[in-house]
Structure formats: structure tokens, C-alpha cells
């Protein structure tokens, strides 16, 4: 017992030699802090105690409220000492304790005295401390001193005041903005850092005033900036001005480009780099503009400083995404960076090379990478794998060497994320390069023979089930799959059973063998595995009563679940066991928009609880209930779709009105949600007069006025139109709000007796094609697409004209069609030149529609689009094309 204790003490002695803080304890130090109250202050000792307190705080120790207050009060006593060193420590301690408002008052006078002291060091620090702990009221008291400090000839004081100003601007903008003149003077300071701080503050004061920023940049770019840091700021502000003015000047030279270019010859490296980066990030930068920037970055690549090499290669890497040709000049320097000591630099170099390389250099590059892969971390490897995948898609002919590379690294050690990246890449290559299919599938098969991640195994098995049966010799995969049933855990076994069943369904010659294998699975120890085996045996058998035809079997095995899982879950929860079996068709297919549903949830609670178990209480349900309560609309049948509310008034007007469009088979109902925002008025008999002269196919059939609309309690009025059945009629409607106003006495709240008739012009409303399409997603777009009849496919190409970027074009088409983007394809990676977007929806008449959009953008920002539509009805496919053609 005694032995280890002694040993521990020995250890302590060793360590004690090199830490003066060993064994330091909060309680003891707080005791020591009593020395601050001593009438005879020992400055050195007090400094040491403060250092200990700071050390404790820095190590993550916390003080209770009482302890902190106590320490704060005793620290304030130390203002009596005239020791400069101690005073500095006192400043630090006060900042660290961040005292509360009532405590601040105690130190304010001491700090204000220091602020006017003759010692410059006191003044600078007192300003920083005071501004750090102060609030608005105190700030007005010391404002005068701060303004003086900004133009003080001592740079330390000026900087202290300016930096404090930058922080105060966040909390007290109106006060700091009054210092403009002084700050402007400080921008001209000869001291480098003062200039930097002044410029930063001046820009932040004016940042919302475009013209002022532009003026500032214009005057400063003529060359009065000395500090490199300030010059970097100026470059940032300049590119901001260029960005904002870009839309106005279509032709001619870019303003301020000369300034950026001249900065490339600055003597400070940070300025050169800032300018080079700014040039590469210019919108629609031309090759001529890029060249000088690339040249200086290329020089940096062979610098002896890692930071410089890193900065350069990272910037070039970004340029390579949009202008690969511009970077090819640097390829030789880049290749030597592959062996760079710093692995971040090496990885960036590799991925840049993969982007800029041409077809002939691929093999050489792959050889270099193979050596490199073994000694970098997983996160870098993932980056490399991603780059290789895109390279392979760019040069499909090279798939052999790239696929080999991927399968080699798949066999090596690695974490889940890394393996997943490789598997995903192989899957994508198999999908997009038909030649690579067989070898890719075999690589995946080999991988699952020894795969420690159940998730990846199940994913691969699922993929094998879809792709395997379509290959020339499906039987060779069976062995790999059936091995899983013997060797793996229950999750993987279950998915192996499903995969076997898919082979059985698709390949008749294999059916008997699959039956034998599936029957063996009936004795599995796991319920799920046995259940699946039983189910598949019965479905495939053909004689079982579960499904009738071959087509149904395939539909059952390969078809995707076409209802959102959330909705299915809610429906199942609400399902009460009864005579009636659960009907999957009763599950709503509309994907509810989450934020909206959440926002509305509290208000709808009462109806939600006693509502029939018809699925989630979505906004659609609420609308349906609301509409069916109006007798005039009861005969319209089932509600197809309700649009999101469209605002018909500007924000903050007298009357706020928005409209919801409800689409029925033969009718359209406009629901006007009105809010009266004038407390002195009561509106009665509120109607909306709709002029449908620009909407020929519509004729008004009913209108339901709102009896009364008191202040701030929203009400609805409805107008219904008849339209041809099943036809997606479009049109424009102009609206006029008509009502009777009665003045309300603000004191009593009683309305006056007689009212005046009045009108209020609302904005126009349009019924567009997108209103006839429901947003309904599919879980597996590819499967859904292939299950549709290819005869109902229509393909055409469209030019979309000039667009800022692809994202804008993609969003425009999605909004036009009003369909649900699938598999996250609505997100366009920045700077990409082409993009594929998948959409799904249900057209009026309950016709399912799938859309595949392929976009391309050229260097002139001209966007072209290929639109492929499949649906259950060729007429609908054509209708979708009509929407795009007319939009």
C-alpha cells in the first residue's frame, strides 16, 4: 500500500521541477487573493496571484458567481498601486472576469482616470478594458475621449480605440457611426496598423451604403495605403465593389482590374496572394485576366514556406474546377508537390492534377498516387477517391485502370467513410459506364466476402440484386450471395435472401436452384430471415395465392414504395386493428413541407386529436376540412391540390391579403386570407371582385363573402370558378377587395353605426401549370423510371438563354413544373458545367410523372437543357413539354 504512494510522490517531484503551477488549487489561490486587500500592497506577490488566477481560468476552471464577485472586488483595490506591471495584470483580470453591469460601475472611475493618464500604456489599455465591459449609457459619457483617442498621435492608443470601435459597432452602431470623421482621418495615418484598423472600421460603418464603399475604394486605390494588412482589406473591398457593379457593365474592361493586377507586384506576399485569389474569384473571369494571377501562384508553388505552397495550391485547385486549362501550365510544379512533406499540400496537388490531367497522363498519375495513398489519412483518401470518380466519368475509356485502382484500395485497410466513398464510386461507374459493369460487380462481390460493415454489405447486396440478373452470366454471383447466408449477421443474411429472390424472379434458368437455397434459409435462427425466405418462396412459386401474375411478382420485388415513409409510419400508428385490413393506398402521398407543418401545428391541435386516422394532419387536410364546410363547394369532389399562399399585398399595408389556390377536377377555388391591420376600423361584407377576362377558360360560379373582419383577426372569403374537366387551364386574374368600413372608437371599441363602401386594389393572381402538379417524391428514381413504359417517353431539347449559373436555371425549371426533386439532385455543385436533375410528381387526373433534366452551361453562360419525361399517359408527357415550351 505504501509502495505505490511513494512512487507517486517521486513522479510529482520530477514534474514539479518543470511546472511552477503543479498542485495548484482554486481554494488556496482564492485565499491568496486576500493579499489584494492588504494596506501595504506587495506588487510582485499580487501579480503572481493574478497569474495563478488566470492560469486556473485558462485550464478550464470556473468560479462561482460569489467567488468571481469576491475576486473582482479585491482586484479593484489594486488600482491603488502605481506598479505598471501589476496594473496590466489587473486589466487582464477584469477582462477575464467580464463583470456584471452593477460591478462595472465600481471600476469605471478608475478606468476613466487611467484613460486620461499621462502614461500612454495606461490609456490604450484602459480604453480597451472599458469598451469591453461597458454598456450604451456609459459609452455616451466616454464617447468624447474615444473620438480623441482615434486621432491620437500615439498609434497604440489610436489602434486601441479603433479596434474597440469595431467591436462596439455590433452592439451600439448608432454611437460608433458618429465617429466617421475621426476614423476617416485615421485612415490617413502613417502607422501601419492604425491604417488597417481604421479602414476596417470605416468599411463596417459604411458597408450598407454601396456608393460610399465604392467612393472609398476609388480614392484609396490611387495609392495611399502603406500597411500590407490594410492593402489586403482594400483588395477585398475592391472585389466586393467589382462583384456588385458587374451586372451593369457588360462590355469593356472590368473596373479596378488594373488595381488588382498591380497588387500582384506588391512586396508583401500576403498582398500578392490576396490579389491573386481575388482575381481567380472574379465572376466570369477571362483567361487573359487569369494569366498574371496564375503566374504568381505558380511561383509560390516552389516556395520553401509550406504556408505559401498550401495557399497557392489550394487556390489553383479551386481554379481547376472552372478553368482547368488555365492551370495546366503549373502541372510540372504540381507533380513535384505530390511528394511534399505536408500531406495537405500533397493531396491538394493530386486532386488538382486529376482535374487538369488529360487522357494520356492518367496512367502515369495513377502510378504516382498508388505510392502516395498508403501514407495519408482517410479524410485525404476520400478526397482523392472523389477526384478519381469524376476523372473516370470524364475519360470513360480509362475505366480499366481507374477501376483497378479503386478495387485495390478497397482491399486495403480503411474506415467506414473511406470504404463507403470507394463503394459509392464503383457503383456510379457501373451505372454510367456499361463496359465497367461486370468487372465492377465482381470487385464488389469480392469486397463483401470480407466486409466488416453491415451497412455496406446490405447496400451492395441490394445493388447486386438489381444489376446482377441483367448480366451475361448471373449464376456466378450466386455463390457470393449465398455465402453471406452462412457467414454473416442477421441483417446481412436477410438482405442476402432478398437478393437471391430477385435473381430467382428475373432469371428463369436459376429458379430451381434459388428455390433450394431459399428453402435452406427456412431454418435460419433469425425471424426476419425466415419470414423473408417464406414470403419469397410463396411469391415466386406462382401457385401460392399471394400474387397472381409474373408481372406482379416483379412489381413486388423491384417496385419502390411510393409513399413517403413518414406518412406510412403515421398511418400505421393510427391504424386500429379491425375487420378491415390496412390499405396502403390510403396513405397520403403528398410530401408535407416540414417547416410549414410545424408552424401551423399548435393552432391545429384540437382538430388533430379527434381527426379520423387518415394520416398526418397536413395542411392539405386542414384545407379540405375548411372547404367541405362551405356548402357551395361540397359538390366539387376531391381536392387535388392546394397551393402555398401567394401574397397579394405588400408587407405592412392597411390590409394584408394572401390567396391559396385550390384545384379540383372541374373547379378552382381561390381562398383569400384577409387581415385588417387598422385598429380604428371594422370591415364588413368583405368580398373580392375577380376580373377573369384574361382567363378565358374560367367562369365564376360562386362567391362567399366574409361577414365581418375586425382588427387583427384573420378571416377568409372565397371565389369559385368552373373550368373544363381535367384540363390544366391557365390564366391571369385581377383582384379588387370590396368592403364596408365602419370607424371604431378607440376608447370604447364600439363601431359607429353607418359605414362607407370602399375598395382596395390587390395584385394580380395567376393560375399556372405548376398548380396542376402535385409534389410527390419516389424513393428510388431509377427503379421508378425503368418501370415506366419507354413508349410514353418524350425527349426534347431547349435553350434557356443567359443565366447567372446552373443553380438559377435548375431552380427556375423546378418552380415552373412544381414537381418534387428526388435524391437531392436539386443541389448543383458550385461551378459545375453540367448537371442532371430528377423530378417526380402527380399530374391532375392522378397520373404519375417522372422527369429527367440534363443541363449544360457554356462559357458565355448560355444554358441548354435536355428534357426527358416519362409518365403513365403519353398525353401527360406532352403536356409537361408544353409547360416548358411555353414557360
Amino acid at each position, binding site marked *: 500500500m505504501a509502495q505505490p504512494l511513494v512512487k507517486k510522490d517521486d513522479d510529482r517531484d520530477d514534474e514539479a521541477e518543470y511546472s511552477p503551477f503543479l498542485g495548484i488549487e482554486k481554494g488556496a489561490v482564492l485565499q491568496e487573493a486576500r493579499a489584494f486587500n492588504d494596506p501595504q500592497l506587495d506588487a510582485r506577490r499580487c501579480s503572481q496571484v493574478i497569474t495563478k488566477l488566470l492560469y486556473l481560468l485558462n485550464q478550464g476552471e470556473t468560479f462561482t458567481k460569489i467567488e468571481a464577485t469576491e475576486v473582482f472586488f479585491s482586484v479593484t483595490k489594486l488600482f491603488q498601486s502605481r506598479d505598471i*506591471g501589476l496594473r496590466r495584470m489587473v486589466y487582464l483580470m477584469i477582462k477575464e472576469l467580464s463583470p456584471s453591469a452593477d460591478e462595472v460601475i465600481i471600476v469605471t472611475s478608475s478606468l476613466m482616470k487611467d484613460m486620461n493618464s499621462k502614461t500612454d500604456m495606461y490609456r490604450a489599455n484602459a480604453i480597451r478594458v472599458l469598451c469591453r465591459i461597458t454598456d450604451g449609457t456609459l459609452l455616451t459619457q466616454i464617447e468624447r475621449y474615444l473620438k480623441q483617442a482615434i486621432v491620437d498621435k500615439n498609434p497604440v492608443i489610436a489602434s486601441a480605440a479603433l479596434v474597440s470601435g*469595431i*467591436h462596439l459597432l455590433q452592439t451600439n452602431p448608432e454611437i460608433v457611426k458618429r465617429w466617421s470623421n475621426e476614423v476617416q482621418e485615421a485612415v490617413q495615418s502613417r502607422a501601419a*496598423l492604425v491604417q488597417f484598423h481604421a479602414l476596417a472600421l470605416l468599411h463596417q460603418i459604411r458597408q450598407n451604403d454601396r456608393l460610399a464603399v465604392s467612393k472609398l475604394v476609388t480614392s484609396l486605390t490611387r495609392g495611399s495605403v502603406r500597411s500590407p*494588412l490594410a492593402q*489586403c482589406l482594400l483588395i477585398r473591398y475592391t472585389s466586393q465593389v467589382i462583384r456588385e457593379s458587374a451586372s451593369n457593365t457588360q462590355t469593356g474592361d472590368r473596373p479596378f482590374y488594373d488595381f488588382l493586377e498591380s497588387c500582384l507586384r506588391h512586396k508583401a506576399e500576403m498582398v500578392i496572394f490576396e490579389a491573386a485569389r481575388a482575381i481567380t474569384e472574379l465572376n466570369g473571369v477571362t483567361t487573359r485576366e487569369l494569366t498574371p494571377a496564375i503566374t504568381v501562384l505558380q511561383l509560390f508553388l516552389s516556395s520553401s514556406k509550406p504556408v505559401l505552397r498550401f*495557399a497557392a495550391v489550394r487556390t489553383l485547385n479551386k481554379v481547376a474546377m472552372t478553368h482547368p486549362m488555365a492551370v495546366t501550365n503549373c502541372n510540372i510544379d504540381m507533380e513535384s508537390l505530390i511528394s511534399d512533406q505536408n500531406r495537405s499540400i500533397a493531396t491538394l496537388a493530386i486532386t488538382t492534377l486529376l482535374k487538369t490531367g488529360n487522357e494520356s497522363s492518367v496512367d502515369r498519375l495513377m502510378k504516382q498516387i498508388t505510392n502516395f495513398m498508403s501514407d495519408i489519412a482517410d479524410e485525404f483518401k476520400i478526397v482523392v477517391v472523389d477526384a478519381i470518380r469524376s476523372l473516370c466519368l470524364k475519360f470513360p475509356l480509362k475505366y480499366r485502370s481507374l477501376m483497378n485502382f479503386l478495387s485495390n484500395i478497397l482491399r486495403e485497410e480503411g474506415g467506414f467513410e473511406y470504404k463507403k466513398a470507394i463503394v459509392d464510386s464503383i457503383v456510379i461507374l457501373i451505372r454510367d459506364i456499361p463496359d465497367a459493369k461486370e468487372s465492377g460487380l465482381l470487385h464488389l462481390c469480392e469486397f463483401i466476402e470480407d466486409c466488416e460493415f453491415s451497412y455496406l454489405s446490405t447496400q451492395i447486396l441490394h445493388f447486386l440484386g438489381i444489376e446482377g440478373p441483367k448480366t451475361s452470366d448471373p449464376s456466378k454471383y450466386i455463390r457470393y450471395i449465398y455465402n453471406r447466408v452462412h457467414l454473416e449477421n442477421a441483417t446481412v443474411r436477410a438482405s442476402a435472401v432478398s437478393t437471391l429472390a430477385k435473381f430467382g424472379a428475373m432469371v428463369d434458368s436459376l429458379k430451381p436452384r434459388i428455390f433450394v437455397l431459399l428453402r435452406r434459409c427456412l431454418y435460419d435462427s433469425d425471424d426476419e430471415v425466415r419470414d423473408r425466405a417464406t414470403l419469397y418462396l410463396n411469391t415466386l412459386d406462382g401457385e401460392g395465392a399471394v400474387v397472381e401474375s409474373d408481372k406482379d411478382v416483379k412489381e413486388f420485388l423491384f417496385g419502390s414504395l411510393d409513399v413517403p415513409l413518414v406518412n406510412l409510419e403515421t398511418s400505421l400508428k393510427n391504424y386500429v386493428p379491425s375487420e378491415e385490413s390496412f390499405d396502403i393506398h390510403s396513405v397520403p402521398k403528398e410530401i408535407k413541407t416540414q417547416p410549414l407543418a410545424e408552424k401551423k401545428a399548435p393552432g391545429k391541435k384540437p382538430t388533430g386529436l379527434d381527426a379520423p386516422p387518415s394520416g398526418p394532419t397536413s395542411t392539405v387536410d386542414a384545407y379540405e376540412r375548411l372547404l367541405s364546410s362551405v356548402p357551395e363547394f361540397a359538390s366539387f369532389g376531391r381536392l387535388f391540390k392546394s397551393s402555398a399562399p401567394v401574397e397579394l399585398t405588400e408587407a405592412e399595408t392597411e390590409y394584408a391579403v394572401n390567396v391559396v389556390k385550390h384545384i379540383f377536377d372541374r373547379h378552382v377555388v381561390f381562398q383569400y386570407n384577409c387581415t385588417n391591420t387598422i385598429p380604428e376600423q371594422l370591415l364588413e361584407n368583405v368580398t373580392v371582385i375577380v376580373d377573369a377576362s384574361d382567363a378565358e377558360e374560367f367562369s365564376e360560379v360562386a362567391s362567399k363573402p366574409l361577414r365581418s373582419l375586425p382588427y387583427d383577426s384573420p378571416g377568409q372569403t372565397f371565389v369559385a370558378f368552373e373550368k373544363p374537366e381535367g384540363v390544366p387551364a391557365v390564366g391571369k386574374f385581377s383582384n379588387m377587395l370590396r368592403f364596408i368600413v365602419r370607424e371604431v372608437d378607440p376608447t370604447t371599441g364600439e363601431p359607429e353605426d353607418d359605414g362607407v363602401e370602399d375598395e382596395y386594389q390587390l395584385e394580380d393572381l395567376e393560375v399556372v401549370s405548376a398548380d396542376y402538379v402535385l409534389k410527390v417524391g419516389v424513393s428510388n428514381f431509377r427503379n421508378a423510371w425503368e418501370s415506366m413504359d419507354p413508349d410514353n417517353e418524350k425527349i426534347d431539347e431547349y435553350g434557356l438563354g443567359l443565366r447567372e449559373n446552373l443553380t438559377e436555371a435548375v431552380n427556375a425549371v423546378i418552380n415552373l413544373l412544381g414537381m418534387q426533386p428526388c435524391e437531392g439532385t436539386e443541389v448543383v455543385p458550385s461551378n459545375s458545367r453540367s448537371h442532371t436533375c430528377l423530378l417526380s410528381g402527380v399530374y391532375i387526373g392522378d397520373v404519375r410523372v417522372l422527369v429527367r433534366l440534363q443541363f449544360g452551361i457554356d462559357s458565355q453562360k448560355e444554358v441548354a437543357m435536355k428534357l426527358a419525361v416519362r409518365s403513365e399517359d403519353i398525353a401527360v408527357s406532352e403536356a409537361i413539354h408544353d409547360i416548358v415550351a411555353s414557360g
Partner: protein
Amino acid sequence: MANFFSSRDSCPAVKNILLLDSEGKRVVVKYYSDEWPTNSAKLAFEKSLFTKTLKSNARVEEITMFDDNIVIYKFVQDLHFYVTGGDEDNELILASVLQGFFDAVALLLRNTVDKREALENLDLIYLCLDEIVDQGMILETDTSVIAGKVAIQSLDAGAPLSEQTISQALATAREHLARTLLK
């Protein structure tokens, strides 16, 4: 403050400055961004950063990307210096902050840069950090100015005359040293 770190067009900002020992333990750390709200988040960041950079031999300033941040670092003896900034920031500006910090510490510790010396002069290092960055905003990067500002503190106004001259002499000597080292 969050505002200060978010905007691309705003000033270069420092998110934290760390000084760790050869086992990854804190000597001094200073966080300016609220990206790491709790002490355990800070410790976790320090630990993974330390592990990630441990293998490199950073005699000169090295650089890495870490959690969407740029970290510039330099190791001397048993001390590890780190400066963290956002991934959109100018790497060279951050490097100048690290350089200012490191050189100033070297000056103040009279070129004996190791953990023991650092802990014995911890007050100087606290003051040094206070002069380099103020709530994320770069205050000063010039080594001699930083060291000069910190060294003035040793000039003891209240001390007896004889002692004052000694400390004054010391300060002058330090400044002299500063100048020779910089050349």
C-alpha cells in the same frame, strides 16, 4: 461577435491561439470565436488537432485544414504553437499572426523557448497574447512592437530608484536584443 466572424468581406479574423505542451496539454489557450462554446468542446478540438499534427515536424510554420478551419502551427522544443482561422481567410495573414506570437515569445523568454521557461513567465505570455489579438481582431503582428509593449511592464514606476535603474537597464537590454534578433 458572431457577425464579426461570418462575413467573407470583413476583416481577417483569428478564431483561437493555442500554446500546448508536448503531450497536448494546455500551457495557454485563448479562444475568440464562439464556435467552441464549452470547455469540453475546446479540449476536444485541442486534442484532435494535437493528434493530427503530432507527426509533422513543424520547425517552420506548417499548415493544415481542420474541421473547415485553417490552422497554422509551429513546434519548438516541447511547445506547440497554433493559430486558427476560417477556411476563407488569407493563410499568409494567419501565418503572420503566428510568426508575431512565436517571435515575441522567443524574445520575451530570451530565446529559451521551452515549457518550463514559458510557465515561469506565464504573465508575459498572457500580456503578449493580449497585445496580438483583441477579441479576434488582429491588433499587432510586428514582433518588436509586441515584445516592446509587454517589456515596458517590467519598468516598475513605484520601485525605489536603484531597483528602477536595474529594471530599466534590463528593458533596454531586451529591446536591444529584440532589434539584433530581427535583423
